[in-house]
């Protein structure tokens, strides 16, 4: 309500300075009050228009009261009942001792409500605050109320801010396009303005062009519509691309640990998804502890969960490697079966400990909400997950390329016996490599807890996708995993609008099946004799 009163003051000021309130305005104002009493929707609408175009000093409180059903009329004076129950004469703003008898609230219907919305827009057009002026112009743009054209043009003439000026001009164009008696040249120019604006609203406005318009106008409109549709399609594609990158980053997170265990070590870890799940449950536990003992730390819960999830999942991974997998090196199919068994055990263990239902993992402040770029809506959690995926990828790459343990890992991968002869403890390296892959899966779990249900089945839903990513990208190649994850994510989201989510996914699976036939070793595969060995 404070906004409204400031609007009012602005309007009053503007009226004094620019619109030269004269006798006509005062008369018009009187006319308006009579119309409020007529108990007819069209009269009420007209009354609103008069108040606005004449820039009546009381316009703001009157319209505000009207909107809230506190404007009383019935032949005599028009009265405002304030929110605290007092009565004010609408015309003068003077307080009244009591309500005159025989008054009833002015009734509203949708047309009146639209009129009110438009009027509030008209009021804001002269607000000293630029942001509010832009908002008001937006409101006018949507209402396309021709009655506001004079106010709009007055405001436009004075406007100095470029952004506000553009908004006002667009509002003016929206009105002009539909206004049959405006000069044709102005209307064509207006179509141009709308085309430049180029969003869904501009499109709707253009489509509202009256059917009886001239041929040249229609042609201009048709061109502008197709132009905007083209641009909007691009934006939509951009939005889908964004969704695709977001999905790609999720896939990358889920698959990159697998790229280590499968790609580097050649171990088929069917329990990989459960490492992700463990990471997600670690996040859940961290948040539970914080909720009960240190609620102030909630915004840091994910930061705390990241290292913990890495350690917990990594340790479980090391235990699996030492306990089971090391007996099965060189027998990939057996490893697959044994780790599948482990995945069943882990799932059931989590189900027993935490119950079979979804667990609530909250989002810290910095991950909530969304913002817009042009026509793109971008949620913070997706953005952070992309950033996180890139960081994890870079860190992993650095570990493999730059650290001594990374060097040892690569040595053991390439020639186990030689590495062993050089004094590398291959068993320890195996365990650490597997732990690293599992730990990274745990990190993925932290991220996924923000966008997916945290349940014992969490991992199951990612395991097939993860394998697809690694196999598609080419085994033993982290960059391949990156490219594959992003390609599959984007392809999935670009297919979805045409094929639907399920068919799109099936199409991708079929594509990968066919792709592997063509290039059995993935996008970026090693070639030569070494591969056969």
């Amino acid at each position: 309500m404070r906004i409204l009163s400031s609007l009012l003051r602005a309007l009053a000021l503007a009226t004094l300075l620019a619109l030269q309130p004269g006798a006509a305005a005062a008369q018009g104002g009187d006319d308006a009050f009579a119309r409020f009493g007529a108990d007819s929707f069209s009269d009420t609408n007209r009354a609103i228009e008069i108040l606005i175009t004449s820039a009546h000093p009381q316009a703001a409180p009157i319209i505000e009261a009207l909107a809230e059903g506190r404007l009383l009329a019935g032949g005599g004076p028009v009265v405002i009942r304030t929110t605290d129950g007092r009565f004010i004469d609408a015309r003068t703003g003077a307080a009244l001792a009591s309500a005159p008898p025989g008054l009833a609230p002015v009734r509203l219907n949708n047309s009146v409500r639209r009129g009110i919305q438009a009027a509030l827009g008209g009021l804001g057009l002269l607000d000293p605050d630029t942001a509010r002026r832009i908002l008001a112009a937006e409101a006018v743009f949507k209402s396309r109320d021709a009655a506001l054209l004079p106010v709009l043009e007055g405001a436009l003439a004075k406007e100095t801010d470029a952004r506000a000026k553009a908004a006002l001009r667009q509002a003016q164009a929206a009105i002009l396009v539909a206004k049959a008696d405006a000069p044709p040249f102005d209307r064509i120019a207006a179509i141009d303005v709308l085309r430049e604006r180029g969003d869904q609203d501009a499109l709707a406005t253009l489509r509202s062009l009256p059917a009886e318009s001239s041929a040249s106008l229609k042609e201009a409109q048709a061109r502008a519509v197709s132009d905007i549709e083209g641009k909007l399609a691009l934006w939509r594609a951009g939005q889908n691309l964004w969704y695709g990158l977001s999905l790609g980053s999720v896939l990358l997170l889920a698959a990159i640990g697998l790229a280590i265990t499968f790609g580097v070590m050649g171990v088929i870890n069917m329990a990989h998804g459960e490492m992700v799940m463990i990471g997600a449950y670690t996040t859940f536990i961290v948040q539970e502890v914080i909720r009960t003992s240190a609620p102030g730390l909630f915004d840091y819960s994910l930061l705390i969960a990241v290292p913990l999830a890495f350690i917990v999942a990594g340790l479980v991974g090391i235990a699996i490697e030492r306990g089971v997998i090391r007996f099965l090196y060189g027998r990939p199919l057996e490893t697959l079966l044994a780790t599948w068994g482990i995945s069943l055990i882990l799932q059931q263990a989590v189900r027993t400990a935490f119950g079979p239902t979804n667990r609530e993992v909250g989002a810290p402040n910095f991950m909530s909400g969304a913002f817009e770029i042009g026509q793109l809506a971008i949620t913070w959690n997706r953005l952070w997950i992309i950033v996180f995926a890139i960081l994890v990828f870079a860190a992993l790459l650095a570990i493999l390329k730059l650290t001594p343990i990374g060097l040892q890992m690569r040595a053991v991968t390439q020639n186990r016996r030689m590495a062993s002869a050089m004094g590398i403890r291959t068993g320890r390296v195996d365990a650490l490599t597997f732990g690293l892959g599992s730990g990274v899966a745990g990190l993925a779990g932290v991220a996924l807890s923000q966008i997916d249900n945290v349940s014992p089945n969490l991992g199951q839903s990612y395991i097939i996708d993860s394998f697809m990513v690694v196999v598609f990208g080419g085994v033993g190649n982290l960059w391949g995993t990156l490219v594959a994850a992003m390609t599959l994510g984007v392809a999935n989201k670009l297919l979805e609008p045409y094929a639907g989510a399920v068919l799109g996914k099936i199409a991708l699976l079929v594509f990968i099946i066919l792709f592997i036939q063509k290039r059995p070793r993935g996008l970026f595969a090693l070639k030569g004799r070494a591969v056969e060995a």
Partner: protein
Amino acid sequence: MSRFFLQNMDKGGSIFLAIIAGLAILIPALNLLVPAGSAFHIPTSTMSLWGKYLCYALLAISLDLVWGYCGILSLGHGAFFALGGYAMGMYLMRQIGSRGTYGNPILPDFMVFLNWQELPWYWYGFSSFPFAMLMVLAVPGLLAFVFGWFAFRSRVTGVYLSIITQALTYALLLAFFRNDMGFGGNNGLTDFKDILGFNVQAQATRAALFSMTCVMLIAGFLIARGIVVSKLGKVVIAIRDAESRTRFLGYRVDRFKLFVFTVSACMAGVAGALYVPQVGIINPSEFAPANSIETVIWVAVGGRGTLVGAALGGVVVNYAKTVFTSGFMAPYWLFALGALFVFVTIFMPKGILGTAQQLWEKRRKPAPAATPEPAPAE
């Protein structure tokens, strides 16, 4: 022909055949002829349950044929099983006729519910039993042929093949969940009434289905055995152990794999077709990748590379599952199953029968020639 199926029949195989043939007669007899109060009576539900186990045994044999003998670890055999089941289910749905809830003489209930006006073309012909039985073989067989044709020609092997077979069944799972596929979506096909004019629920029908399952298990076993003891079987084992060596001997490895894979898929389809009328429902969950992997563990438990072992594994593991999941131990079944996977792969790579055979041979021949190390089955 009998030479093909019965050549060099070993003791284990003979015992297996005798047992199954005996069951085919004995169990229905105990069900139908012994009065319900008697201690020897076998309830219809128990008989159908064992019928289900024997279907799984046939599925296990089909998987063993490709995995145990040819080294192709298919993680998508459940898909062939389910497709055979759906073919049978479609026949059974058409037999319902106008007895459905909506009384539509042509359309199954779920199609009426979805406001479909006419039968989709791929449902044509399923009102005929011979056609449906042909499809039980043809649909899984064709899918396996096309899939294998691509995969084996481009030499996709080992875990890559396993992963894409898993992707195959996963894709089918997603597809069959869709209502507009025309297979009943999530709910699948159920509420069957008749098979060949006999009530599916009737005791005698159940008994006949059980006997039929035994007959098909015997047939499947004999076919699989005929294949593995033939020279083709030797080639297939050679492919398992040294694929590229076999190729350098002039054998077209892809064709041999394709043959075995397709035969195996048809066999899995038959198992699925027998399964559906005895269980009374087929739904997309049969395509779940987890089911296919479970099938692999049956084979591993029983002993891969021995057909009797695979069948034994199918029955034993599923019997254990029933016992486990019906009692207070139910929540621990997945622990047990998971542990079974780990235990068998690490400590009993040859499975029950393989290990038993080894022990038996050791006792017979105290100083055997060194047995070769098990080669990675890739």
